């Protein structure tokens, strides 16, 4: 990545984090707006960085750990921005930006890929990977929202209101935002996985061959479906559903790291 985009993206994300934090502590509307605008600017610079990398590689920019993590951070930001605009709620930005920054900066430190890239060409493969990473990003966002929910729930139940609780989104809205995010993740992972099967069929002439990644992905899908159902209709609503959501994200992280590195035959970084 050119240094220009690296600097621009990092600066915009850092400033956005500062503005969102200022909004959270002071409640100044102008700080919140600045946070949103800087996040949008950071996402634009980040997109240009991904685009440049893609042109350099003549393929999608995520067949290695760098690209995968960087795209993850970008999609996390994009999903958050969409939810922020939809729900008109900026108070979570200060919690999401650190995750984005960690993924973006960690991507810079990722080791170069020593393995040969997969025959990763064509729009179906691109959609398969992009939608899968979008799903992970949406699940990550939902994880952050559940963490904020649990933190606020604890403060409310122990009557320790402090200064910033008044600035956080209402509990009910946090739950709805988390569910919206999971819904995006579920749709993305369902379509993305289906496209993966189509791509495998074109590549190898068969839809199915055993890969532990499939099992874990199916498990992730089921766990999030369970969360989606429990969070809306049963006695699990509230803190219990949020805890389940946090557990689910643990499985996603497991799928993204251990399963990819040590067990999967065809997935490495997504």
């Amino acid at each position, binding site marked *: 990545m050119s240094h220009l985009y690296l600097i621009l993206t990092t600066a915009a994300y850092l400033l956005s984090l500062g503005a969102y934090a200022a909004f959270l502590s*002071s*409640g*100044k*509307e102008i700080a919140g707006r600045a946070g949103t605008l800087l996040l949008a600017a950071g996402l634009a610079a980040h997109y240009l960085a991904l685009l440049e990398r893609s042109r350099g590689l003549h393929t999608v920019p995520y067949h290695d750990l760098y690209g995968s993590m960087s795209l993850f951070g970008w999609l996390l930001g994009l999903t958050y921005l969409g939810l922020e605009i939809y729900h008109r709620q900026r108070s979570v930005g200060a919690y999401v930006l650190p995750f984005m920054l960690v993924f973006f900066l960690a991507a810079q430190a990722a080791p170069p890929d020593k393995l040969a890239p997969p025959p990763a060409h064509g729009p179906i493969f691109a959609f398969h990977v992009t939608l899968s990473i979008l799903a992970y990003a949406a699940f990550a966002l939902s994880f952050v929202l559940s963490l904020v929910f649990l933190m*606020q729930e604890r403060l*409310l*139940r122990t*009557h320790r*209101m402090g*200064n910033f*609780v*008044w600035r*956080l*989104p*209402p*509990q*009910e*809205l946090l739950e709805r935002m988390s569910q919206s995010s999971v819904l995006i993740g579920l749709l993305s992972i369902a379509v993305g996985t289906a496209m993966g099967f189509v791509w495998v069929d074109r590549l190898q002439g068969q839809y199915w061959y055993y890969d532990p990644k499939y099992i874990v992905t199916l498990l992730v899908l089921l766990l999030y479906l369970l969360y989606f159902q429990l969070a809306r*209709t*049963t*006695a*699990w*609503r*509230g*803190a*219990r559903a949020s805890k389940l959501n946090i557990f689910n994200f643990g499985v996603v992280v497991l799928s993204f790291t251990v399963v990819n590195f040590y067990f999967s035959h065809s997935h490495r970084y997504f």
Partner: protein
Amino acid sequence: MEIVLVGLNHRTASVEVRERVSFTVEQARRAAEELRTRGILEETLVLSTCNRSEVYGVPPESSHECAPGLSSFLSEFHSVRADVLGSSLYHRYDRDAVRHLFRVSAGLDSQLLGEAEILGQVREAYKSAHELGATGPVLNRLFQGALEVGKRVRTETELGTRPMSAAAAGVKLAERIFGKLKERSALVLGAGATGEQVVSQLRDRGIKHLLVMNRSHERAADLANQYGGQVVPWGEWDTALQGVDVLVSSVASDEPVLRREILERAMAARGNRALLLMDLGVPRNIEPAAGELYNVYLYNLENLTDIVAQNRGARESEVPRAEAIVEEHVGKFLSWQASVELVGLVEALRVRVREERAAFLRERVASMHSINPGEVAQLEHLIDELLEKLLIEPAERLRGEKELRRKIQNVEALRDLFLDRREKP
């Protein structure tokens, strides 16, 4: 174009005096008319709330000279002896009057620091006086500035954001949990004064359904009628608790009226939907162990009072920011006022210079025999041109340069220097 303010508030006058000197809307209009008819004020506005009665005005002459007449008027209008009123009244002039109004509008002068109602009251007072035609360019500008200050302080600082009463804190908590209350329901246990305060605030926030339960059916019906609620017979917990999101309890009872078992059953029936319990009773009405139930948020009066105490500290820490906004707008208003006054001064100076020029030429030309009328006219034209150049340039600079207007602190001094007092514009 001076400004005068005469008034009293919760700091200077007892409740009895405040009550006697308060204005109804109709009285405020009548007072404004009389003040102008009698020539005490050219522009006038009466601001009257439960904690203050203030008359703002632009006097025809000096503001200091007009103040005693204004005090006498208030004494006469409300039939309160001047010596009783005298010790309660305060007088503010020009910059101090402007600052006072802006602080009032910001909620900095309120008994309850940062209270929001005062801004609406200032708006209403201004609207009423404006419709009556009692305000003019000065008070229009002044009160528009005051409304802007109030709005900025409320949006840019936290002076008015935190609840300052147990009732308000309870309602804010409900919003922390449920968001907007328009689709929510509340159950009120007891018909006491504290509970009624919460009900009133919940209604202001647009709560959809209100259920009232009280041992005395009559009192429950009164409260329900007053706030558009529905009476539920005492003790029908299962029915009442099934659909509500907020429960406010202020029952006079030695023992808790709501036991954990009742709430446990209710939570199971409601599928564990979140429930906020506000126990405002002393002794407590709700068994403390109910707070351990899943998705139950229990706050008693002490918890709510603690929140109010925290908020008071937070509000006080916002005062410097609010004061800075007030000072910024005082500066803006005074700059505008100075620009209008200075431009008027330059115009008056121009008229005077023309008169001086005419007298000067008459006197000097009379002694010059060699000069013909055509040359006199030419001389007049040249002198006019020179004088215009000398005066128009400063006038234009005054119009355009804010910094210059700011530097000229005392227009009175300039006026005294170049014009006789009687020639004031």
